[in-house]
């Protein structure tokens, strides 16, 4: 996600992105990629700005957003956990890993924890088949997993979240 936090700044940035790409043929998808990096997802108002800026119908923007699995219309958690369900990972027991995480975080695939910290997804192949089963948490790749390791990795992230919460509470007080 971008460094700026306030919405107006983000929209300012979005306009810059649109201007930078506008003259290129087939600019829609590159713009949507950058917009999603900026906002974390593609809400309706962002799609509207893109449609107006590039001069394409909103229906086309929405059509593209819903066609490709990489684009999301819902906000994602701070930590996006993706378990690879490619063939190699599947044969090596990725389903068990996915179930374990779902159980630990108490969410289903495609859901986000109520605190907005973790989202769980089943990913398309990341090409780490030699280290299957594989999962990614944001940009970190974890390979050769078993269910115990997954628990440990999750614990690390949970502790980090708790620590940050404590800090935030302390700062407030």
């Amino acid at each position: 996600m971008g460094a700026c936090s306030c919405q107006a700044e983000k929209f300012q940035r979005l306009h810059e992105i649109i201007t930078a790409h506008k003259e290129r043929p087939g600019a829609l998808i590159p713009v949507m990629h950058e917009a999603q990096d900026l906002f974390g997802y593609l809400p309706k108002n962002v799609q509207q700005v893109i449609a107006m800026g590039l001069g394409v119908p909103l229906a086309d923007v929405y059509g593209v957003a819903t066609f490709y699995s990489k684009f999301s219309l819902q906000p994602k958690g701070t930590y996006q956990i993706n378990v690879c369900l490619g063939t190699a990972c599947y044969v090596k027991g990725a389903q068990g890993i996915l179930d374990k995480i779902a159980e630990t975080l108490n969410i289903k695939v495609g859901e986000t924890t109520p605190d907005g910290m973790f989202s769980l997804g089943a990913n398309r192949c990341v090409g780490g088949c030699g280290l299957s089963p594989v999962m990614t948490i944001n940009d970190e790749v974890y390979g050769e997993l078993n269910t115990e390791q997954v628990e440990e990795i999750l614990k690390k992230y949970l502790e980090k979240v708790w620590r940050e919460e404590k800090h935030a509470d302390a700062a407030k007080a």
Partner: protein
Amino acid sequence: MLTLQKLNEIKEQTLAAANMDSARKGTRVVVGMATCGMAAGAKSVYETLAKEIARRGLARVTLAQTGCIGFCRLEPIVEVYIPGQEKVTYVKVTPENARHIIAEHLVNGNIIAEFTEKVSLEKQKRVALRNCGVINPELIDEYVAMEGYQALAKAVLEMTPEQVVDEIKRSGLRGRGGGGFPTGLKWEFTAKTQADQKYVCCNADEGDPGAFMDRSVLEGDPHAVLEAMAIAGYAIGATNGYIYVRAEYPVAVKRLEIAIEQAKQAGLLGQGIFGSNFNFDIEIRLGAGAFVCGEETALMVSIEGHRGEPRPRPPFPAVKGLFGKPTVLNNVETFANVPQIILHGAKWFADMGTEKSKGTKVFALGGKINNTGLIEISMGTSLREVIYDLGGGIPNGKKFKAAQTGGPSGGCIPAQHIDTPIEYDALIQLGSMMGSGGLIVMDEETCMVDVARFFLEFTVEESCGKCPPCRIGTKRMLELLEKITNNQGQKGDIEKLEQLAKTIKAASLCGLGQTAPNPVLSTLRYFRDEYEAHINERKCPAGVCTAFLQYVVLEEKCRKCGLCARSCPARAIIGKPKESYRIDTDLCIKCGLCISKCPAKAIEKKHNQ
């Protein structure tokens, strides 16, 4: 402007400065840093090595990150080349080991044998992967040092476009993305079409689950693809190229961006390449997670900024492709072969492989095999050699059952055909296909019906929805397969599957739909008995499908306390304290609560025998 003479100067200088050739004066240390290496922790190893080399002020040591050398199970891998010595390969290196390696090997000159493993590339034939794991993919000079961009110079300065096409045609190179269409013919058709603008596209949308050949080439040797695209542009008369790469490959994207920038800086892309009047530019386009965009017409529609839905052919891309202009579209691995063919000649390439499948093929070995990783072999090598000699066989002494090639479009090669030579036509005869190179090994514990279900689930998810045979037909097939694996199969289901498969193959618009039934057809061809066992005998012979599991009380272990019966939410456990307990299979909902409650571990999941 970069001249050939200057290119040769860079080559010689880099070879010496980066300690790359056997005449090296200093030490070269390389760390495998492709996605797989980084997943195993190569980043911290690299940082430790860098810090340690700087701290000790070691002179004449080049530390380089490289792409994948193919031994994924041994990552992180560090290789040390010391002048006058053989290469030493350290495997599964930790930051702590890395410090030891510097102290013991680089400083004191003692190889730490227990950290090493002898890895041999002897049985492989590396053309497309020749630079992977050798050069630093983020430095153009190291590519130039390995004869990089010499082929482009040769093509532009010494050959006519017709000669380039002819060379590729005579080499017998066929599309490595799976289809196997002769590359030279594709170029020839596009070259002959008259148009004001033409395009070269590189298909790097490697969507096959279980395949990572293209990722490795892009992460390990991105300039080879750029050089080949420029050669293609020269041959067909195009000035623009697009690389369509999956967004799931961030490392590959980053290295491509760096490579393009460096090539532009050096004058190897842009205006007047090598002082000729040939101009060529390349742009990257990111995929957005749609398997169907690996299909050529869908890929081009996606670059144009629309939903990636295929369109009927003809017109073929050679006539009407990207933005309605004639377009050559080749896969990453196909391109990676091109500079070598131009440099060493068509005959050199055609001497490798078999009569109709020339050259080499890269395979990604995965699944139930000891040496998971990437290999490149001569076409015609047998599956047995790949699995047992290169792949190191099946783990835990299990029996080989089948190899799956071609991903969701392909099929399986069963154990009785393990001596089949790997080439386009032989694999098609077996009902499978070469595919892009994913090779998933399955052992006796893999249920083939479940595998077919897995692939259909994938195609249903990835079907774009444009044509009904694929959109509706694959869904119906999946429902039947789910029925069978859920212990609800009925007589006639297999025949229904076959009929649906036939219709979908005949009536679908694009390659995705036309090949979607293949995993079912091929498992039916070789493992029909497994389907029949699921339906008629109500069992899963491999013991995978959970619907066929039965919970049983082990008489000899049971303490007859009754805890299980009290905790069973379905009241499926019948018996009396101090007498005996048994589980009524019809009532059991297979929740597993009894297993977790039993103090004597006397309840087990068992498959129908």
